[in-house]
């Protein structure tokens, strides 16, 4: 039997672990306290997504970050199931911002793997085109006038594009690969 057939994905191999990853992560805003996680599991117990998903487990994510399982984490689409309700953040007895860690991982996955859910690319492209993350069609503007609502504030598209550029977001979006749905 070849090496690949013998490999059981659930078993962690030492070579998969990147001991520096936790330090890299700890420098990012929102993930500073990740080393304080002692795996009590309050986050998973209180996570509304975990109740209905077989794959999304915040405690497991925190442990995987500590172990440095970077590749597994960044390629796991379940990362995109967090609804950022912040129940985990408020309930963590150690003050670890789990939702912040998940967000940092999503950002890394986009930056380093160039992959994101299609919906985010659409929202970003609408934002660049019109200042709003949804396309506000002409009929909406007319309806506002009919309803007696003031005209919508105008976007400054040049400045928005500049913000995308200087934060390094334009390049990423140009070449990003997308996927549609995430299994729960």
């Amino acid at each position, binding site marked *: 039997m070849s090496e690949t057939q013998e490999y059981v994905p659930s078993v962690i191999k030492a070579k998969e672990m990147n001991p520096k990853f936790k330090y890299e992560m700890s420098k*990012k*805003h*929102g993930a500073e306290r990740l080393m304080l996680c002692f795996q009590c599991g309050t986050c998973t117990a209180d996570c*509304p*997504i975990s109740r*209905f*998903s077989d794959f999304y487990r915040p405690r497991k994510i925190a442990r995987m970050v500590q172990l440095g399982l970077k590749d597994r984490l960044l390629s796991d689409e379940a990362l*995109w*199931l*967090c*609804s*950022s*309700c*912040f*129940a985990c*953040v*408020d309930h963590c007895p150690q003050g670890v*911002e789990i939702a912040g860690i998940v*967000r*940092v991982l*999503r*950002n890394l996955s*986009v*930056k380093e793997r160039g992959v*994101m*859910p299609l919906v*985010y690319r659409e*929202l*970003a492209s609408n*934002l660049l085109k019109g*200042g*709003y*993350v*949804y*396309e*506000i069609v002409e009929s*909406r503007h007319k*309806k*506002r006038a009919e*309803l007696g*609502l003031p005209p*919508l*504030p*105008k*976007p*400054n598209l040049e*400045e*928005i594009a*500049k*913000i995308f550029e*200087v*934060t*390094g*977001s334009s390049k*990423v*979006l140009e070449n990003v690969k997308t996927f*549609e749905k*995430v*299994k*729960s």
Partner: protein
Amino acid sequence: MPKPKYLIFLGCVIPYRLSSYEISARKVLDKLGVELVEMPTFNCCGYPMDAINHDLMITLAARNLCVAEQQNLNILTLCNGCFCSLNETNKVLKEDKKLRDEVNAYLKEIGMEFKGTIEVKHLVHVLAEDVGFEKIKDAVKKPLTNISVAQHSGCHLVRPAKYVGHGDDPENPTLLKNLIRLTGAECLDYMDETQCCGNPIIGVNEEVPFQMAKEKLDHVRAAKAQALITACPFCHMMFDMNQPRIERAFNEKFGIPVLHYPQLLGLAMGFSPEELGLNELRVKPSELLNQIQKGES
């Protein structure tokens, strides 16, 4: 006391789909003496971009804060998501000098600078703190004593607690409840009141949010509430616009009308359902309105 004056931040969901929230909020605030000024220029609050790039989100939020600083006005948001990103960015940038310098380096490219001179409030904070319970009580002309409702404050109005402020308890939020009680309506407790609506992930997965919203509607129904009251357009979309889809998915009928809080308050203040955009709701509130009318006669 001078009249409260705010820069109104509509966000993206309201202009896209939910003018009923905006119409009712403007009507109610005007009557309660809150002056609203339109944003001279706008971009998305940044919240939806947080998953892609945190620097992008925080700089988009900061640009809006700079616009408000230039106007020397505090921001009022109607959307929990906008409140969360603008308020958190405002607080973080005021406290963290290193981050502020980083963001100001980005903002310099568009000729702006974050100074930290304004505040961000959600509609419910403005009603509770600037208008005050007494004044709202006085403005209620037709108390809705005949109906019982439930509330869904939504996550970003109360969490993460370390950024929100305003003294509400994220485990047992009472601000919206107390505002509801001012209208004369009974505000019922129900199971898992603080659970998320699920809508933020609907773009990547429908099963989980549908189950979350279905469970919430189950609990609201079990409490015998005649309507669910929200303070966030995104949560509202999940429970109102998607309610027929949830009903089909689970082969169950709920028919629970979902009202934006200023619609409920507006009814109690004597505005007509049409003036408050109640006709725009997906789940028709006819039975609720009949019940209210019965109480008046």
